[in-house]
């Protein structure tokens, strides 16, 4: 029988290496192919700088469009809350910074734990609210595919297991921590092959969008 510590070391060792391999390989295959394919050559005389326009749109998409907010305030507010919360919990929690530093060699200051704890709780509530809304809203429910629900779970699990591990709800502790690491690894493994790729491709799409319009001299 596998002991909790053996399970933890498996998630930190071989499983982590597998997850990193699948993630890096899968993501780079997809991204590089997108870049190599490029866009069709445009023979028209440019009316504006495509690069500047592309970069500007990469940033400007953070500003919520007034019309979008009016049409779907819940999606905008809850969407922003849990996305920001997820990124804060992922990148500004002390043990995560340590992990990134040991893997990539770069580190940065982290937030105090009670702050990350509170933000994680809010993020969990935000994700739950998003799921309930998806289930109750007839149009959203009609449009949702099994992948949407699966990806919701894949996103929710690392957060909830991390929250439970931090508060020592799952005993013994190595089991709780191992479950958290495993759920994060599932996230990494499915990331390149599902809609989670938007974490990286959204920036490419924003850039192309902005660049195309800027070249035409149109605001995007």
């Amino acid at each position, binding site marked *: 029988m596998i002991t909790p510590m053996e399970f933890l070391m498996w998630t930190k060792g071989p499983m982590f290496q597998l997850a990193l*391999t699948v993630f890096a390989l899968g993501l780079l*295959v997809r991204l590089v192919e997108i*870049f190599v394919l490029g866009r069709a050559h445009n023979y028209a005389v440019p009316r504006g700088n495509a690069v500047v326009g592309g970069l500007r749109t990469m940033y400007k998409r953070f500003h919520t469009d007034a019309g979008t907010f009016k049409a779907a305030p819940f999606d905008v507010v809850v969407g922003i809350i849990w996305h920001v919360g997820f990124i804060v919990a992922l990148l500004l929690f*002390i043990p995560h910074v340590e992990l990134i530093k*040991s893997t990539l060699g770069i580190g940065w200051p982290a937030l105090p734990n009670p702050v990350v704890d509170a933000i994680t709780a809010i993020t969990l509530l935000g994700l739950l609210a998003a799921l309930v809304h998806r289930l109750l809203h007839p149009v959203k429910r009609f449009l949702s595919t099994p992948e949407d629900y699966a990806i919701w779970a894949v996103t929710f699990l690392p957060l909830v297991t991390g929250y439970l591990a931090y508060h020592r709800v799952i005993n013994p*502790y*190595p089991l709780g921590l191992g479950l958290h690491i495993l759920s994060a690894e599932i996230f990494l493994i499915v990331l390149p092959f599902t809609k989670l790729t938007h974490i990286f491709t959204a920036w490419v799409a924003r850039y192309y969008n902005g660049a195309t319009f800027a070249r035409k001299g149109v605001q995007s």
Partner: protein
Amino acid sequence: MANSRPYASASQPVPPGQPQPSLGEVLRRNGVSRRGFLKFCASTASMMALPPSLAPAIAAALETARRPSVIWLSFQECTGCTESLTRSFSPTVENLILDTISLDYHHTLQAAAGEAAEHAREQAMQANMGQYLVVVDGSLPGPDSNPGYSTIAGVSNYDMLMDTVQGAAAVVAVGTCAAFGGLPKAAPNPSGAVAVQDLVKDKPVINVSGCPPVPMVITGVLAQFLTFGELPELDPYNRPLAFFGQAIHDRCYRRPFYDKGLFAESFDDEGAKKGWCLYRLGCKGPMTYNACATMKWNGGTSWPIESGAPCLGCSEPDFWDAGGFYDALSVPPGKPGELLLTAGAVGAALGLAAGVMSRRKAQAATKTHRPVTADELEQKL
């Protein structure tokens, strides 16, 4: 052993026919005041998370308690557990509590040797059948492994344990080796070492883990057994909850620095001198349950983290195999950074190939593309 005097009882059994002196008598004979004794009972009550009102009950029970026979078996161990017990507590009342158990068999501490020593064990077993306590330190080769890895008087550890626990009231596994296998069980476990609880299934087993364990925990468990005649409440690892109920991290006096994100980055930097958190230096406090942070060592003088050393997690199962002692808890073993770069490079190469192939396909399609005229379409209709 220079310090074996307090354990003289191991070699001075009470003559047959005379009743064992009660604990109260022994304490008075050793000059322990009533006030000192009651103070000990009160602190024992609070240690075991019992209401203060139970202190008199403990006192009454301990006062009249007869010395229970204890057989101490040492298997694949380093004697660190015994060292911890004898060195750090000799002048205190806890030491006398230990003295008042009848330690009938203990390799290191008993005066008898050879046949006489083994005879003492057999005699104690027969005289106290069903009532004696077995304390074990050290792991032992499992029933399927070569028994020759560890024997005493020509008897394998496995046979001696199974034989001795038959008439025991309970078994106390002292130290991480006895409780969880410890160092002998660490990968690749050449001797096939197992813990006591892997073998003893029909008797209560209390694990007092630690490498070595906090001495007060051992005395606390014995005091509880003397007082209530029953075993303490245990955690999922069969450790007394009163001592192993909280993580080092949650009771650590350096915890505020962790929460604020203030860390020692090396053992002699400014942070280390200011006593900041040792998480980045590999402290395993967050996953370690023990009483070090509250009871401390050497009579409450200090404990590893207070002296600037990160917690190794020595009271947890398999702590030897839980990654580098000086790697932060969240740091994975191996070189994941290199793996990430390699996989990324391979992925980029594959992506490049896929992109080039797709472009060629598109170019070939453009070359072979033949415009269709309106007349040709008309003809098809």
